């Protein structure tokens, strides 16, 4: 126990600082206006307005965003875009990741790093032409004028794989490298074709790795801001990452409790997912780079 003490002494302050904004969101979202906007109250806790402290907490600001704003729509939009992008990503990245890990010998490593470098091309370098290209694509014959690509979730679904595919290919390459070659060789000797071996042996074994890629690619989509910000202007078609800062903040009028509820909920869900899949993420990440 005494040997563990430094670990706690070092990590606890870091954890407190890093998690503090989320504690702050959690406390704020259930506060009454009178409690929140009074400089005499201790802001870290609920200050009793009535006789008991639980009467000073309220869920009305949380229910407000679900009932009176487009927040539920944004959540659905985000989910829809994320799911579609993850599906597209897997279609391209699964074969590519496998081929880079197993089939393409020496140049496979270089190609893998090449694909990964694409991940480092930032959206901030591409958003100007990208947003214009999407508008132009929307004018192509066959695409309804009123519901062109601009302002459509399909624009995001088309664009987001540009960063999820390189990311996913790299991770999957790492996962596939950790699978023993012998398993596949055995399947090939038993008369499977390579594709069959891939579908029946490699993919099922890699399922935890694939799931990890699904989670992190989905999270990248939830995180994305600048494309969604420049391509989508109607409130109904926003994702949660642009809807909350653009439409829940109106001028100088902040309704902080609702805002904090809107930011806390997606954050904690993603953090729980990340934490559960973190060990696998680390395995895939290093598997691709260092064998």
């Amino acid at each position, binding site marked *: 126990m005494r040997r563990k003490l430094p670990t706690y002494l070092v*990590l606890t302050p870091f954890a407190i600082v890093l998690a503090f*904004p989320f504690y*702050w969101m959690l406390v704020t979202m259930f506060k009454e206006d009178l409690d929140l906007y009074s400089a*005499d109250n201790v802001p870290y806790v609920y200050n009793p307005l009535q006789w008991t402290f639980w009467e000073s907490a309220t869920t009305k600001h949380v229910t407000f965003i679900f009932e009176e704003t487009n927040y539920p729509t944004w959540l659905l939009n985000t989910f829809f875009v994320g799911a579609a992008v993850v599906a597209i990503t897997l279609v391209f990245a699964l074969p590519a990741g496998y081929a880079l890990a197993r089939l393409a010998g020496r140049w496979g490593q270089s190609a893998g790093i090449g694909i990964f470098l694409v991940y480092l091309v930032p959206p901030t*370098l591409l958003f100007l*032409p990208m947003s214009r290209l999407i508008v132009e694509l929307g004018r192509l014959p066959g695409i309804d004028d009123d519901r062109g690509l601009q302002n459509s979730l399909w624009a995001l679904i088309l664009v987001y794989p540009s960063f999820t595919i390189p990311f996913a290919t790299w991770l999957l390459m790492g996962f596939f490298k950790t699978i023993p070659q012998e398993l596949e060789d055995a399947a090939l000797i038993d008369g499977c074709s390579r594709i069959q071996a891939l579908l029946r042996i490699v993919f099922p074994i890699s399922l935890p790795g694939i799931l990890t890629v699904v989670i992190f690619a989905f999270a990248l989509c939830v995180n994305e801001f600048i494309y969604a910000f420049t391509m989508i202007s109607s409130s109904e078609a926003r994702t*949660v990452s642009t809807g909350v800062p653009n439409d829940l903040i109106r001028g100088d009028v902040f309704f902080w409790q609702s805002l904090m509820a809107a930011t806390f909920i997606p954050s904690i869900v993603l953090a729980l997912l990340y934490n559960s899949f973190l060990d696998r993420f680390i395995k895939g990440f*290093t598997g691709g780079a260092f064998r």
Partner: protein
Amino acid sequence: MEAGTARFEPGSRRWRRAFESRRVLAPALIVPAVVFMVLVVGVPFGWAIYLSLTDAVGGSLSGNWVGFDNFITAWGDDNFQKALRNTLIFTFASQAIVLVCAAVVSHYLVRDFRGKWFLRLLIILPWAAPVSLATIGWLWIFDSLFSVINWTLGHALGLVDTADPPQWLGRPNLALMAVIVVHAWRILPFAVVIFIAGLASIPSEVDDAAKIDGATGIKKLLYVTLPLQLPIALVALLFGIVFTAADFTVVYVLTQGGPFNSTQMLTTWSFQIGINSGSLGEGAAISLYLFPLLAVVSIVMLLFARRAQVS
């Protein structure tokens, strides 16, 4: 049905045999991803370069050729100079914080201990939360009237004047500091994760050898762990530089480049010029000033990858 399969048998068998050979199968599996990448990254990138050399304005995808005029005009603007300087300060200051803290945190977090799951959850929260949403949390922390920092400093500790507390996002230097801190806060968990990945890849024989040679505690950290961690620190740094220099969200949500353009970055300035002012060409040129930085980072990464391959 039977006859049909039989008739197509020879063709499909040849097709299938071709798929057995690595020479055919490997490109067949990789090419779709590469083609998609070229279409959604290569084409817009090429277009950005083209736009930067034209006088294109908002609402069009082309313009008249103006050579390097946009780059020259942009460079001559005071706000651009400020944005360039800010981007460098922002990137290197936040990465310095991140590297030091990540080295410390990862050193301890890689061990096993009771309550690790929960502590790790708290530590990775800033990285897992959607950037724009987490930044709104900071907007509230830095609020001009009800900042919890000011309450703590003023009401609880009496360190600042409660009547005139620091305006974290309203004063140029404070605002720049604020975006640096928030971004470091956000990147730190990611760097920790990369560091842990690096530590995990150090073979356990090294640990044993260090133990036999009597290297423990600080000595082990200095002479064994840190040198072995250097390559992975480089990876974390390169990632950090790219993600920070190219960040738009944190700065835009916190300050929108203000007050008085004091937190303007190349990214927000290119947005301001390219979208808000509608000078598509100049906006593209401004964002392309980021490219040399990113190219250097990529080259270092490639060199590093080749070295890792050789050893």
